[in-house]
């Protein structure tokens, strides 16, 4: 069930730097943390501020990014999804619930929070890394 992938240190470092640039731009322009789970859940009512259009625009940018990449690079990278549909539903529910319950995901805690040296984000990032590694260990090497 595991598909080999190529180690891409340079591309991943550059891609990461772009993610960081995006987080810095959002703070500079709008004063907000670039946490995707927080932005996504606030697409839905009840609304506590008037920033829905901006949030929707940002998520739209995320969604169309591979298409824009394809226009420039000539081809759109295809993700390798090996999970069954029921597993994707279960994983999606868990990811959505946990990220909002813990006030952040890989972007909000892992990138923005760690960059702010937030202790809560360090605890959160350590915790989700640990349970994710444990989950992969169980599904790939025990089950």
């Amino acid at each position, binding site marked *: 069930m595991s598909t080999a992938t190529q180690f891409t240190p340079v591309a991943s470092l550059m891609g990461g730097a772009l993610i960081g640039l995006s987080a810095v731009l959002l703070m500079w322009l709008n*004063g907000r943390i670039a946490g995707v789970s927080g932005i996504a859940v606030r697409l839905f009512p009840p609304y506590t501020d008037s920033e829905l259009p901006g949030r929707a625009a940002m998520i*739209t940018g995320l969604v169309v990014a591979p298409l824009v990449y394809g226009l420039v690079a000539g081809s759109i990278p295809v*993700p390798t999804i090996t999970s069954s549909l029921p597993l994707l539903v279960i*994983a999606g529910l868990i990811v959505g619930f*946990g990220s909002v319950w813990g006030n952040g995901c890989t972007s909000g805690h892992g990138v923005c929070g760690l960059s702010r040296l937030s202790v809560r984000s360090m605890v959160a990032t350590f915790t989700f890394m640990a349970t994710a590694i444990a989950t992969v260990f169980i599904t790939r090497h025990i089950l």
Partner: protein
Amino acid sequence: MLILAQFAIGLIFGLGLVIAGMSNPAKVLNFLDVAGIGSGIWDPSLAFVLAGAIAVTFVGYKLVLRRGQPIFGERFHLPTAQDIDARIIAGPAIFGIGWGLAGFCPGPAFTAMTSGVPAAIFVAAMLAGMLAARTIASRPVSVIGPATSG
């Protein structure tokens, strides 16, 4: 103007994910598979993504937060919670299980959405899970305390 900027910010974020290979859950799962180091399946790329993102954000935040306020807005909205409560452990612990099951976290899931039905189904389920968490967290009488912004 701000809306266009936020579209561009999302686009830059998504291009970063695509270039970094993170919209491919196989790369994420292979990073999390630390027991695969011996067999060569382990892919450390994700650590480089985090390193690149944190390096830029750490320095960039320092520069930006020196200003009194953001370009469009009255103030910086920074999380104020400090306490290590049950939710800051339980939420990420739950999130990590789902991340390890399918290899998708929220950002990459949105960026993979146009690849087809499976990723779109994941996003739909993820949004449902998010709304469930917010609904439970915002019940008027709650033993788990009020939701904080994050």
